[in-house]
Every structure is written in structure tokens, then in C-alpha cells.
């Protein structure tokens, strides 16, 4: 008899989602987390799309989960040389929230306690170093010398997934396919946030910024939490190196930029953090099923970047949940072979996880275009400025004005190409 039915590496959203479902269905589950508490190593920008967690945890309404706030306003700001233009989406007949803002150190801790209430066991302060094998099948893990045997193992250890690399389940990452983020938590207080962002109760704002990264491929974000504000920059690794701009310096440039200071002025920075995400999604998916083994979440490169949309957490929850569903079937059949566990691939193919990742598979081709981060944000500003500027001289007609500015700033062939690519790839 193995020590447990399922051993899960990592108490992030993928691992905890799998553990929750397995424990709820009566299996013996052990989650091994290297941090001192679940969430202590976990960073996200802040926004989780709620559909996946709603389906997984049906008995608790999302309003009763430790979301900081729920997004009621979407903003995107295009930053020019000495100005910025903001587009704002407010919907006032929404019956149900689409996304919530989280601080992972708080959220994952809560999620882990929910897993424990349902009978799952979580061990912290333990690093998993190796997998145990028997006759070509994964039969457990080795965590700092301790062996734990299991019928199946789920690797949910995040973007680096050293275990997947060690056992040749994934290719080496390319700097073209990974983004790094630097994030800061700004203390403002609940009332001040409500006042500055014009919010009440648990309403929140998700705000993206383009053109604020000194030409590096990437962007910035602001998310309002309950009493703190999260700010940060997310950049393509290769682009930072090519532009010789440090993500650490860029963060401070961003934090002190007038477009950001407008919201956080006077607020104290109280935590500085960072995160790595696999940007290419489906194009770098590792081998996620083998004998006795499944991979879920960021470790499986389930991450989507499509324009201003960043999604990792709903993919993590859904893939963890489907990994659990697979193992429940395998448990019934008492068969944890690769063949049976391949049900996981079928389930993923029929879910939004692989459907959406396939749908957006060309998005990085579009995103890998320096004009998006330099010329276009500037152009939007210049056009808007000229439209609004009055000094007594007579302006050309709007069409002429726009064409003049466009042709002055960007080769029309590129402009046409970029518009076509946006329609094809996004």
C-alpha cells in the first residue's frame, strides 16, 4: 500500500484545486509546499477570472471567498511622451462579477485551510527534490530525504517546473516565451482607495498601461485590493536584455511615473515582489501525462496572454480540477497507467483550458511587435491632443489630421500589416 493515494507538489491554485476535489471525494491527498505557509511563495498580478473557482467550489459563493475586491471597471491607459489617454469600461447592469482581485498570500492560505477541512493534508517547509520510480511508473516523491509513496503524483510547482525539466518532460524555456514581473504593494487604506478610484464596498478596478516600459515589450498594471493597491510591470525577458533595461529599474520608473503617481501618491510601498510566467502557453506545453504522473497549472505552461488579457489562475484551477477528475476515474479502475491518465488530455481538450490556449496560440506573434509599446501609444496621444487643442488657428479636417499624424509616425505598410495581424492573431 502506498502512503497516500495522491501526492501533489506545490500548494498553489492548481495543486490546491486538485487536492480539494480529491479530498472531497474521499481520497488520501498530501500536498507538499516548500514555503512556510501556502501562498508564501506565490505572486500574481492580482486578477482571477471567477468562472473556474465557481464551478470547483460550489458550496461557497465567491463573495464569501477572500477576494479583496471584484472588478467593476476595466481601464487601459496609453502613455505618450508627455501625456496619457485612458479608455474606461464601466458596465452598470452586470448581474454577476466576472473577475476578482486577490493577494495570493492571503487567498492561498484560505484555500489550503479549506482543503484541510475536507480531509486533505498539507505539509509546509518541505522542498520536493525528486520523483520516485518503479518499473517506469512514478510511485511517489522524495522531499529533502523523506520518501512518500503514492498511486499518482501531480506536479503543480509553478512556472519553473524543475521536476518536469529534470525528467525531460519539458523543453528548455526560451527567453522569447517567458515574462518577468516586478510588483509592489502600496498602502493607501480602504477609504482612500474608495475615494481615489471612486469605488464603494468591494468594487475594484483593473487597470492596464501600455507605452510605459521604455520600449520594452510589456506593460504595467494597477489592481485595487481592499486596503492596498498592487502595481507592477510585466516584460518579456528577451526584450529586457535586448534593450538593456533592468526590470528592477523599470519598476521604479513606473512607480514614479505621473500616470501611476496620480493614483498612489502619498502611498507607502510596503512589499516588493516578482514573478515569472510562461507566456507562450500551448507552444511550450510539456508532456503533461505519463505513468502515475500529471502536470497542472503554470508548470504545464497553462498561461494565456492575449493583448491586455492575462490569465493564469483560472487555467490553474481548471487544470488542477481536471487532473483530480482524471485521478478519481483512475482510482476507481485501480489503473494509473499513462493510457488511463490520458483522460486528462481529453478533459483538457474539451475544456476552456486547451480550447482557449489553441485559440490564442498566435497572440505572441502579434505581441512581439515593438510598435505596440512605442509608436502606437504615442500616436493615440498625439491624435487626441491635436483634436482637443484650440489656439485660434484653424485645424485641418479630422481625417486629414489623423492621416498626417499616422504617416508622420509610422510607415503605412506597417500600419496595415499590424491591423491585419491584430485581426488574425488576437
Amino acid at each position, binding site marked *: 500500500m502506498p502512503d497516500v493515494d495522491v501526492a501533489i507538489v506545490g500548494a498553489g491554485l492548481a495543486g490546491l484545486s486538485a487536492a480539494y476535489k480529491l479530498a472531497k471525494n474521499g481520497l488520501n491527498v498530501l500536498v507538499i509546499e516548500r514555503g512556510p505557509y501556502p501562498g*508564501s511563495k506565490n505572486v500574481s498580478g492580482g486578477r482571477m477570472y471567477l468562472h473556474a473557482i465557481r464551478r470547483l467550489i460550489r458550496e461557497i459563493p465567491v463573495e464569501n471567498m477572500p477576494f479583496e475586491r471584484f472588478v467593476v471597471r476595466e481601464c487601459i491607459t496609453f502613455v505618450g511622451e508627455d501625456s496619457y489617454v485612458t479608455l474606461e469600461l464601466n458596465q452598470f447592469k452586470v448581474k454577476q462579477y466576472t473577475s476578482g482581485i486577490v493577494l495570493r498570500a492571503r487567498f492561498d492560505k484560505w484555500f489550503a485551510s479549506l482543503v484541510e477541512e475536507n480531509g486533505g493534508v498539507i505539509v509546509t517547509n518541505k522542498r520536493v527534490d525528486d520523483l520516485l520510480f518503479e518499473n517506469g511508473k512514478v510511485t511517489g516523491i522524495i522531499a529533502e530525504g523523506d520518501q512518500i509513496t503514492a498511486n499518482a503524483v501531480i506536479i503543480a510547482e509553478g512556472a519553473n517546473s524543475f521536476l518536469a525539466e529534470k525528467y525531460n518532460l519539458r523543453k528548455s524555456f*526560451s*527567453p522569447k516565451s517567458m515574462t518577468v514581473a516586478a510588483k509592489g504593494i502600496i498602502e493607501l487604506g480602504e477609504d482612500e482607495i474608495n475615494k481615489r478610484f471612486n469605488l464603494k464596498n468591494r468594487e475594484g478596478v483593473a487597470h492596464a498601461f501600455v507605452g510605459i516600459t521604455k520600449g520594452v515589450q510589456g506593460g504595467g498594471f494597477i489592481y485595487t485590493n481592499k486596503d492596498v493597491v498592487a502595481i507592477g510591470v510585466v516584460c518579456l525577458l528577451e526584450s529586457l536584455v535586448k534593450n538593456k533595461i533592468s526590470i528592477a529599474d523599470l519598476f521604479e520608473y513606473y512607480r514614479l511615473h505621473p500616470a501611476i503617481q496620480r493614483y498612489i501618491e502619498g502611498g507607502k510601498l510596503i512589499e516588493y515582489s516578482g514573478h515569472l510566467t510562461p507566456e507562450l502557453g500551448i507552444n511550450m506545453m510539456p508532456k503533461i501525462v505519463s505513468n502515475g504522473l500529471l502536470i497542472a497549472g503554470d508548470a504545464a505552461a497553462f498561461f494565456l496572454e492575449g493583448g491586455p488579457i492575462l490569465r493564469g489562475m483560472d487555467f490553474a484551477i481548471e487544470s488542477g480540477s481536471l487532473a483530480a477528475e482524471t485521478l478519481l476515474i483512475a482510482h476507481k479502475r485501480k489503473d494509473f497507467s499513462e493510457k488511463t491518465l490520458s483522460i486528462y488530455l481529453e478533459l483538457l481538450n474539451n475544456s476552456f483550458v486547451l480550447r482557449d490556449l489553441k485559440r490564442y496560440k498566435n497572440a505572441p506573434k502579434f505581441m512581439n511587435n515593438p510598435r505596440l509599446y512605442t509608436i502606437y501609444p504615442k500616436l493615440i496621444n498625439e491624435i487626441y491632443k491635436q483634436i482637443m487643442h484650440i489656439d485660434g488657428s484653424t485645424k485641418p479636417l479630422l481625417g486629414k489630421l489623423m492621416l498626417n499624424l499616422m504617416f508622420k509616425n509610422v510607415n503605412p505598410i506597417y500600419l496595415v500589416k499590424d491591423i491585419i495581424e491584430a485581426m488574425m492573431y488576437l
Partner: protein
Amino acid sequence: MSEKKYLNVSERLALTSYNPDKESHIFVDTEKCLSCPTYACLYVCPAKVYELRDGKIHYNYEACMELGGCIIACHQMGNKAIKWRYPKGGYGVIFRYG
């Protein structure tokens, strides 16, 4: 921390919690760095663990926030000098907000 003042990275890191291990989880063959074409590690680390001083790479593992971006940068764009693993369980960075 005053709000509008530029905070250098060590001032920022002073706000982040750590439980540093006595042993480093990062190993850099700094001889290899001498002929590195890009010094990619300098640009991708939000904690500036890596620093170029007097033509040599110095690294401070205690500041590491455990992203792992430096490994990819070094191995794909640099001279494959960085060896890196997660710190032992319980050690390293501890995010209070995340």
C-alpha cells in the same frame, strides 16, 4: 519610505520578508561570465541579485525572490554560468501579500 523618492533596490527589498539559508541556492561560475556576450542576468532580476562590479559578476543569493528568470536568461542568452535551485523548505523569500 517617502513616496516620491526613488527607492533603490535594496531599499525596496528591505520591505520584503526573508528567511535566508546559510548556504546559497545559487551557484555562478563567474569565470564564465568574463566572456559573457549579454550579461542577461543583470536585466531580468527584479531583486538585482546579480551585479557587475570591476568587470566581475557578484551575486547576493539572500535577495533572491525565486523567480528563476535568471536561469533562462543566462542559459539561452548568456554563457550558461548560473546553477540554481529552490532554497530548502522554509527558507528564502516569504511574501506577506504576494
